[in-house]
């Protein structure tokens, strides 16, 4: 496709043509299946690019972009005590989260180790899942022995 055709179709999609130019081009498109196909592809591509970029732009900036920027723009002596309460809370939670997550992980590993040690007391060799979760060994026969 010639650059000129592509340009005219893009202008049509973006509403950059005068009403007369748009009407002329629409008549031309009606007569040409190739132009119709090209317009549809361009419309789909145009939409895909815009929606993709917009969706990613919403997640692209880290929190408190404006606050961080204003701090960078503020001269050093005036920078003290400039963080907003929300940003303080956010960074405080972030600081708190790491040790809590680490302690939780250590606790889980501790329980798993304890269960594995304890499970060695059973006669039957337990599976890894039974050992980690401290489940008693259950066979098909013992399952049917349950009192009804």
């Amino acid at each position, binding site marked *: 496709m010639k650059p000129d055709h592509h340009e005219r179709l893009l202008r049509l999609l973006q509403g950059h043509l005068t009403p007369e130019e748009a009407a002329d081009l629409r008549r031309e498109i009606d007569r040409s299946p190739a132009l119709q196909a090209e317009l549809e*592809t361009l419309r789909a591509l145009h939409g895909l690019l815009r929606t993709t970029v917009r969706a990613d*732009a919403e997640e692209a900036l880290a929190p408190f972009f404006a606050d961080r920027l204003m701090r960078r723009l503020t001269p050093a002596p005036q920078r003290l005590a400039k963080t907003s309460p929300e940003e303080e809370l956010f960074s405080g939670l972030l600081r708190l989260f790491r040790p809590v997550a680490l302690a939780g992980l250590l606790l889980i590993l501790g329980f798993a180790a304890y269960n594995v040690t304890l499970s060695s007391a059973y006669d039957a060799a337990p599976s890894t899942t039974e050992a980690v979760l401290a489940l008693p060994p259950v066979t098909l026969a013992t399952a049917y022995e349950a009192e009804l």
Partner: protein
Amino acid sequence: MLVERYEEDVAATVVAMLGPSAEVDDVAQEVFIRFYRALDQFRGEATVGTYLTRIAINRSLDALRRRKRRLARFLSRDDEAARISEPALDADQRLDARERRRLVHRAIRALPPKHRAVMVLRMIEGYSTEETAEMLGLPYGTVLSRLSRAHAKLKAWLTPYLKENATDA
């Protein structure tokens, strides 16, 4: 506040140029810092949004040059060419939204930066060819030919996905 009003637009321009990465936040900050430092040169001939977009494109091109220098240390020319000519997606593959977005960025990233800048301004930001030419300091015809080439490549890489999208709809 000006930053809050334009931060998403600036982020969109930078994301389109660089792809989603941690670098986007840094470049977006640089854009506003550059804007504030050059405020006395801003004569109001363009809108603030246009002025910021122009800075965002220039900062992104700088970031791409830095990225290219870093890459050059690790990749030989052949490796880089192989990476860029890799097809953007497999036509038979059904893709989820995240994967589609990743592939769209991969296709955009495979365009040469100069073509990418034209494509971003013209097709994503919606500036006219005249405005794009003015913002990039290029002749009108150069914008047209770069856009045409960028469009042809994106069309070739992303058409399978466009068809899949039409089938889904």
